[in-house]
């Protein structure tokens, strides 16, 4: 992608900028995380509390790509109906998980294409 673009300031008025390459760079929108919270509590909370997705969870995924995590979750979860959410809903759930972990929202809508998400590396909020 456009390597120079990362050096440019990003704002809503300049939608052509290169997508972020790390979860620290604002990879999802606030609205996505809000939708993700609803899905998490409607669908996933039957088996997972939010606590499961903070701390070690994000540390262990650090270094993998968002695409890897997307692929894992979208093929195996929810365990009783794997793959039953739409791709954009899986992206919303991931957005909520990133928000839980203190990773910043941004202006760019997180993609629901595994290939595009493979370009974004997961990093925790600190360290």
């Amino acid at each position, binding site marked *: 992608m456009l390597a120079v673009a990362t050096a440019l300031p990003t704002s809503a008025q300049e939608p052509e900028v290169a997508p972020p390459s790390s979860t620290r760079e604002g990879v999802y929108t606030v609205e996505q995380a809000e939708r993700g919270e609803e899905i998490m509590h409607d669908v996933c909370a*039957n088996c997972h509390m939010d*606590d499961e997705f903070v701390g*070690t969870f994000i540390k262990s*995924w650090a270094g*993998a790509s968002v695409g890897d995590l997307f692929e*894992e979750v979208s*093929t195996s979860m929810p365990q*009783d109906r*794997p793959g039953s959410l739409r791709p954009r809903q899986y992206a919303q759930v991931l957005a909520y998980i990133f928000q839980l972990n203190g990773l910043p929202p941004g202006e760019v809508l997180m993609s629901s294409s595994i290939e595009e998400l493979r370009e974004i590396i997961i990093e925790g909020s600190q360290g």
Partner: protein
Amino acid sequence: MRFRGWSTWAAAAMTGALLLGLTSGAAGQRLGTEGGEWRYWGGDEGSSRYSPLDQINADNFENLEVVWRWKAANYGPQPDFIYRATPLKVGDKLFTVAGSRRSVVAIDPATGETLWMWRMRNNPRWEASTRQNYGKGVAYAEVEGRGVVYVITPGYYMAALDAETGVPIPYFGMNGIVDLHLGLGDYPVDADRGILSSGDITSSSAPIVVNGVIVVGNSHDRGYYPRRPENVPGHIRGYDAKTGEMIWKFNVVPDPGEFGHDTWEGDSWKYTGNVSAWAPLSADSELDIVYVTTDTPTNDYYGGDRLGGNLFGTSIIALNAQTGERVWHFQMVHHDIWNYDNPNAPKVLDVMHDGRLVPMVIETTKQGWAYVFDRETGEPVWPIEERSVPQSDTPGERTSPTQPFVTKPAAFELQGVTEDDLIDFTPELRAAALELAGEYRMGPQFNPPSLLNHPDGTNGAFHAPGANGGANIPGGSSIDPDNGILYVASQRGHSVISLVPGGEAQPRLSNLCPDPAVPCASSATYVATGPGGIRGPQGLPLLKPPYGAITAIDLKTGDHLWRIPNGDTPANIKNHRALQGLDIPNTGKNAHATILTTKTLLIYGEGRGQEPILHAVDKMTGEEIGRVELPATTNTAMMSYMHDGRQFIVLAVAGAGVEAELVALALPN
């Protein structure tokens, strides 16, 4: 003359016996399915998952082609993505269930055409059911010459349907239906909705019919963080196959005066529930015994609200099918706080062992052990020893001082987690794995769950196999009665259990806690935050491979014959950035292979979410013989039958984005 005739016959019989003994080493009295049929969920009443057919064999396996596909997606308000059913084949029909309404269907075995369909009218009990999905199938029996199909619905009713037409049998229960909430015990009912207000009970498995009695199991919602310590126990009932009348009840949480009552301290027997028999049942109709296996009492990971040994939690129970009387039992885990619910239909077969034909019953488990008993007496075939285990330091918890350890056959999956078990593909990955795991308590088999934010700085405790490890329902096990071999599919997996006080647990479940503004905690003293484990670094599995395997165990000796990984190394490992340039032997897939044994082959699919490939391997060596592609990934064990001279294999497929269907394979005509 008469004498000679007799001796000739005797000699022939003896030669036959000898031959059997010589060629197979195991005299299989139970030869699995008969007549090319598949009359029970597990093939036969002993759940062998064995078919003696051999039209499909090593020479032609790769010629298998899809003959028909039957779409299950339209049965129910939304498509099903995890189809867990195994059809029966009786005469000229297949019988199975589909979708969240658990519609019962009859299907033409040659073409896949739907012949009839029945479903229960919608009602609040369906809405409230915690097991709309996961319907595994139906039971079949002949009652006064008429074929009858029995199903347990998500709302926990039992229906009896005419096998020819699908029409409910009028003289069974009330117009063909029996309400399974009735006769369970004195549990409060929510009058408005007609559901039990003290808990949930349903079933996902078929019942089993033994000598005219239908034995009914049950299941519950998952118990990681229930809203309360109270629930309904999964009592086992027997019903008249003709009338639907309840004949007996066996209390899995014993009443005062009943055997085992003293294993529940205080009032815990009054309110504790679960202990469901959710796995399919097996039977030996000659002995007139049904083999029932149970799960953990309420609250999978904390037992402080139910101190004591908790009989008949996590047990195998042999019951007289006519009376419900206990013939014998064995508790696999005392005071279970690991969610080690028994996941498989027990296997029934006779094996030559120590010079005698032993009537065995075998349960393969999430603990990674196959428990082998004499099914008449309950005597373990190889010693099972009580050994000391680590003790919990969670307030209010009292772990059992000992647990039963199976001495043979050896465990078929990794048990316990130590530093040695963490990945070591590279020194960097190993160091990172150690750091991630360092927050949690490692330990041997039966390492007890521990607190999140424990004062000693830890955040929970490992146990392995965990929630999704060891053996489980999707793959399960199968047997080869000719050779006395048990095949078991297992997955490597651990859980890390972090306990939080129930009052601090806020599972906001839309169905249980409809108002997000109202705090929704649990009245259990402690609950787990969930069943999962932790990943290793960079999203890699934390534990060393193989991630999934099939193990062959010779029941004549108790020794492992071979062990193979489930399929090939998955793409996410093969293509992982951190592993490029490394030489990594086949890790297998992290799923339960779904297995079937035939006269000459062990056939398996790779299981939930994995590659859509059907493999055939040599039963004696585990060597791969062939593979064919499937339209989608398999989620549950398959079945095989003969119809009009053609052998079929039918399996349920579904997965991410792939709606549920049955797929029938056979050789080209």
